[in-house]
């Protein structure tokens, strides 16, 4: 099982690197925490913390895992990626180890955010919150794999502006800040096309303590399908000769 061993080695190495970059972890969760502190009390007058906190978790996932490709841009520039590609390590391990490493960072940021949410007034049942964190990890795997694939495919200088620009509409369309049920019909329909709305709705169900529902099943299925598809695409890009 060299794939598993190689994945573990790359994963462990990437976690060590991530944990050394404490500033990156802190700044990744700082913006959602500010939303929680400065927007939360306002939102609480029309909604609940169980609606807002899952939205902020999605924001963390999009901006943390979605920007994971930055790391591979640096590794490609410094020659580290090419050095690894000449080893006999499996290509899927080179990607998956890196992606799972990103998920650990996302998990830390998500735990901090949920803990802060409880301090502000979140009343989600603990099993629901834990299940939500698992769903976030699944989403993070898909997003990080896609981000790495995009980073290897496009002009490295364009990666940050393109991804930054793409993340904002995706976040708004997910209904992170206000439920899309309040949106006009066309916007509601458009948001249903994005996978993030389905994942977010499942997350809100879990935070509300409802587990065996169609919404949860749909959200988990979408997150799982996204993870499998994005890892497959990412591995294909890693295998490509000029990647």
């Amino acid at each position, binding site marked *: 099982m060299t794939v598993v061993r190689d994945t573990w080695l790359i994963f462990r190495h990437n976690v060590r690197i991530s944990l050394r970059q404490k500033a990156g972890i802190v700044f990744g969760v700082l913006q959602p925490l500010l939303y929680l502190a400065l927007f939360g009390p306002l939102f609480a007058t029309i909604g609940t913390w169980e609606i807002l906190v899952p939205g902020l978790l999605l924001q963390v996932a999009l901006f943390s895992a979605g920007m994971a490709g930055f790391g591979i841009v640096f590794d490609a520039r410094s020659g*580290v990626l090419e050095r690894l590609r000449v080893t*006999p390590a499996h290509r899927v391990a080179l990607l998956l180890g890196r992606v799972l490493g990103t998920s650990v960072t996302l998990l830390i940021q998500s735990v901090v955010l949920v803990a802060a949410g409880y301090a502000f007034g979140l009343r989600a049942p603990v099993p629901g919150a834990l299940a939500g964190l698992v769903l976030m990890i699944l989403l993070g795997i898909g997003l990080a794999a896609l981000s790495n694939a995009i980073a290897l495919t496009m002009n490295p200088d364009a990666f940050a502006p393109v991804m930054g620009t793409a993340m904002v509409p995706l976040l708004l369309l997910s209904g992170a800040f206000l439920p899309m049920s309040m949106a006009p019909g066309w916007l509601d329909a458009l948001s249903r096309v994005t996978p993030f709305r389905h994942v977010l709705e499942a997350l809100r169900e879990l935070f509300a303590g409802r587990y065996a529902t169609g919404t949860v099943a749909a959200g988990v299925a979408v997150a799982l399908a996204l993870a499998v598809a994005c890892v497959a695409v990412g591995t294909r890009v890693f295998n490509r000769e000029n990647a």
Partner: protein
Amino acid sequence: MIKTSALSKTFPGGVEAVRGVDMAVEAGEIVGFLGPNGAGKTTTMRMLTTLLTPSGGSATVAGHDLVTGPREVRRRIGYVSQGGGIGPADPVGEELELHAMLYGMRPAEARERVAELLDLFSLTGLADRPGGALSGGQRRRFDLAFGLVHRPSLLFLDEPTTGLDPQSRADLWAHIRRLRDEHGLTVFLTTHYLDEADALADRLIIIDHGVIVAEGTPAGLKGGTGTLDDVFLSITGRSLRDGTTDEGR
């Protein structure tokens, strides 16, 4: 150790970077692979190290077919790219241990091998430093350590001394010679420095416009009269540093 037959590479858009290369490298040889910028050196080396898939022809590297057994080839070769492969922020010793374990070494074995290489390349005490805190010469010696960590039988070096001061270049040459003499390592290197090719290589292979245009020992090519610069100019019509960039070719 290396045998190619009509090896070629055509990039999308129809650019023929390598057009039917036939060559053979014997075990224990140091072979200098020379050519002007854009001649096809880097493309050939990237194919031989499995980083590029050939468009045509065949090649056996370290006893395995390049196309059907790339992982077996990777297990047996070391590769040091022109720019090296050391990140600026991570401790090099840790990176080196990971690299060793990706070749199947157990953690204790990897640590032992890393210590051995640090000693071999006079890098002891530098393992905890991030790549960005190393001098050019130290970085290049670490690059060599990465290429050798799994005790390959064949080492590819792409422009190994570019950007190094004369002392560091001389040190690196000494290391390469010692590896061949003491460990029987086969070395296939590209270089822009004819003095380096002259001093290091047992045999030279010259490529131009994607085809091999000459090969022989440095003394044989010089014929006892000219310099390698003269030989190179007469064969290719260009000096070694003329032409367009070799990037991506």
